[in-house]
């Protein structure tokens, strides 16, 4: 599914903003996620405890380049992450705008090209733009991660038509909805549409009960995936009786 790694769970979970390390640990377990995202920051006091949670979770680590605004920052951060976490996986974020946290597609493609050439398995945080997606594939990416909506906004799939077109345009490429999801129903919808996975953080971390919400998202993702595999019926404008007319009594 992702660079030769198959996963059972199609939910990727972020580790930021939880009310406590204990809740974080329980939420990871309840979600069923096998991949968690982490970042790199200046060494602080609580670094040791967090490292312990990462090891204990048994999850595969997907480090990010969150907060980077330039190619150089993102590339250096990725190189540091590779050494620290011992993985070629990198969630590549190159942010272009402070309010929307929209990716800078030009810098993103350039950074993806550099990192792919250095042997990284790049997971680019991108938009639903098809041309940018093609350029990222050309740059060496074997996964694309279009946003559902701006990071942390909880709006869900803001451009469903565009995302559907993207799914159709890249039939063989693993596509992950990354960012913007606020509710399990939105995650289920993404999976029903044929996306391969979803990545989220705030919707779980900022829920009233993050552990229960983590479980809800895990179930929604599994249900959406099963529904996609089962083949959804086409929708129609007018009603169509489900109960047969044949054999009905004349009672009028």
């Amino acid at each position, binding site marked *: 599914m992702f660079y030769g790694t198959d996963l059972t769970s199609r939910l990727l979970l*972020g*580790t*930021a*903003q*939880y009310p406590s390390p204990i809740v*974080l640990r329980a939420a990871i377990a309840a979600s069923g996620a096998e991949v968690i*995202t*982490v*970042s*790199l*920051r*200046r*060494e*602080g006091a609580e*670094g*040791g405890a*967090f*490292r312990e949670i*990462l090891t204990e979770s048994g999850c595969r680590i997907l*480090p*990010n380049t*969150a907060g980077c605004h330039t190619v*150089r*920052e993102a590339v*250096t951060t990725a*190189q*540091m*992450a590779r*050494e*620290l*976490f011992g993985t070629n996986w990198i969630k590549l974020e190159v942010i272009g705008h402070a309010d929307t946290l929209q990716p800078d597609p030009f810098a993103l493609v350039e950074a993806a090209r550099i990192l792919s050439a250095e042997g990284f398995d790049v997971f680019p945080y991108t938009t639903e733009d098809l041309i940018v997606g093609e350029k990222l594939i050309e740059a060496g990416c074997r996964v694309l991660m279009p946003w559902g909506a701006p*990071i*942390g906004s909880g709006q869900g799939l803001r451009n469903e038509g565009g995302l559907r077109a993207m799914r159709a345009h890249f039939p063989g490429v693993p596509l992950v909805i990354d*960012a913007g999801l606020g509710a399990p129903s939105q995650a289920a919808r993404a999976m029903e549409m044929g996306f391969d996975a979803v990545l*989220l*953080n*705030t919707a779980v971390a900022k829920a009233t009960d993050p552990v229960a919400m983590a479980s809800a998202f895990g179930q929604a993702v599994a249900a959406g995936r099963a529904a996609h595999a089962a083949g959804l019926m086409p929708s129609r404008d007018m009603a169509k009786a489900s109960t047969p007319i044949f054999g009905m009594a004349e009672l009028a």
Partner: protein
Amino acid sequence: MQIDLNGEARVTGARTLAQLIEEQGFDAASVATAVNGAFVSRSARDETPLSPGARVEVLSPMQGG
């Protein structure tokens, strides 16, 4: 000499990045380093000299989305 460590001015007697990591009490195996915006691998810290005003970043795993 004075350098910049994680955004703060520091006076150090260290002459290499490896010495600085040790002097400042970091766990060398659980941090990643960069000097003046460029990654310096663990094995290259020994032969990475520090010059006055060098911007050193010492990073570790943190929560992220």
